[in-house]
C-alpha cells in the first residue's frame, strides 16, 4: 500500500492508503477530520471542498495518493487556535448563511478560495463561483450575503434576511 504524506492545516499528516482511497476518506477516516462532508459522492454538490495547494478541489473526486506532498486545508483549519471564527465563518453566523449546516464546510472553503483570488466580488461573481456548491436549505441568498459581507462590502441592499 502506498504511503502518503501531506501537510493538513499546517501539520504533517501521513498514513498508508490504498490506490483507490479518496482524499476525503483519508481526511475523515485516517485523520478524523470529519468537518469535510460527503454529500453526493458524484462530484456535483461541493460539500467536500477543501484546498489543495491553495486551490479549491472536490476531495471526493481526488485520490489521496494524488495529494502526496501537498498542502491541504480543511474547514478545521479556518478558525484561530483559540476558537475565534474566521471572518467568513463569522459572516455565515451573522447573516444566517446556514440552516442544517451540511453544505457549510464546502461553502466556506469555496468562499475562501474565491476571496483569495477576488477580494471584492460582485453578487453575480459570488453566485457564479458557487456553481458547484449545492445547498438544499437556504435558497442561497444569505450565503451570498455572508460572503459579500466577509469581503467587507455593504450588504444592506441585497436580498432580505
Amino acid at each position, binding site marked *: 500500500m502506498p504511503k502518503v504524506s501531506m501537510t493538513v492545516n499546517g501539520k504533517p499528516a501521513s498514513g498508508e492508503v490504498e490506490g483507490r482511497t479518496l482524499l476525503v476518506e483519508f481526511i475523515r477516516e485516517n485523520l478524523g477530520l470529519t468537518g469535510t462532508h460527503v454529500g453526493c459522492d458524484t462530484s456535483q454538490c461541493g460539500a467536500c471542498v477543501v484546498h489543495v495547494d491553495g486551490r479549491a478541489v472536490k476531495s471526493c473526486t481526488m485520490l489521496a495518493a*494524488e495529494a502526496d506532498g501537498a498542502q491541504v486545508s480543511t474547514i478545521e483549519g479556518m478558525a484561530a487556535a483559540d476558537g475565534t471564527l474566521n471572518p467568513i465563518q463569522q459572516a455565515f453566523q451573522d447573516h444566517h448563511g446556514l440552516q442544517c449546516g451540511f453544505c457549510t464546510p464546502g461553502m466556506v472553503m469555496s468562499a475562501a478560495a474565491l476571496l483569495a483570488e477576488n477580494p471584492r466580488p460582485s453578487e453575480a461573481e459570488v453566485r457564479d463561483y458557487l456553481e458547484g456548491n449545492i445547498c438544499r436549505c437556504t435558497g442561497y441568498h444569505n450565503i451570498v450575503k455572508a460572503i459579500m459581507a466577509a469581503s467587507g462590502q455593504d450588504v444592506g441592499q441585497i436580498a432580505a434576511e
Partner: protein
Amino acid sequence: MYAFEFERPSTLADAVAALSDGEAQPLSGGQTLIPTLKQRLASPGKLVSLTGISELQGIRVDGGNLSIGAATPHAQVAAQDHYPVLAHLAANIGDPAVRNRGTIGGSLANNDPSACYPAAALGSGATIVTNKREIAADDYFTGMFDTALDEGEIITEVRFPVPQRAAYAKFEQPASRFALVGAFVAQYADGVRVAVTGASNEGVFRWTEAEKALLANFSADAVSGLTLDGAGMIADVHGSGDYRAHLVGVMTRRAVAAAG
C-alpha cells in the same frame, strides 16, 4: 471502486513504460475517470497519474499557435489571454473545483459527446500531439467517447492555431453544466470552421454547410436558412433530436454574432 495499483511517474518516458502494461490506464484530473470508477464502469489494474509530469504542464505561444500541455487544468487555460475564446470556453466548464483539477488532455481523450474542448479543438483545426505522433483534429474524433488514440497512447500537448475571430456559444444543461448544444465558430485566413458539440450521436462534428455559407458571408443571417436533420441527434429527457437540431442553428448564429 475496484482496487487498483497507483503510480505517479515524474517523466513522460516512465509514464509510457508504466502504461505498456495492458491493465493500466492514465489518470489526469480524474473529474471524469474517478466518477466512472466509482460506478464500476471501468476496472483498470493500475492507474498511472499524469499530474506529476512537468513536460505535460503549461501553456506556450509559438508563432500563431497556442500549445497547451495535456495535464494543464482548465483554470489555467481560462487564465491565459493569447486565445481569449478558448479562455472563455475553459472558464465555463463545470465549476471552479472541477476546473482546478480537470485537464484538456483528459477531456479530449474522453471525447464526451457533450464536452466543450472537443468543439474547440475541431473548430480550431487543432493538432493533438501524443507520445507517438501528431493527429489532426479532423482525424482524431472518431465517434461518441471514441478517438484515434491507440491503447496506452498518451496525449502530450494540444496545439491550437489562433484564429482571426472566433466564439463559442454554449446552451448549458443546468444540472450537469455540460453543453446541451455548443457551437464553436472560428475564422482563419484560409477558411471558416464550425464545430458542434452536444448534438450528434456521433459526437462532435463539423457543420460544413454552415462553414460554406459563412465563408461567403460571415454573418448570422448567412446561416439562418440552414437546417439539420434531427434523426441523427441525441434524444434524451433534456431534449428531442429535433430540438437539438434546432438549437444547433440558434447556437451557431449566436456564436457568429458574438465573434463579430
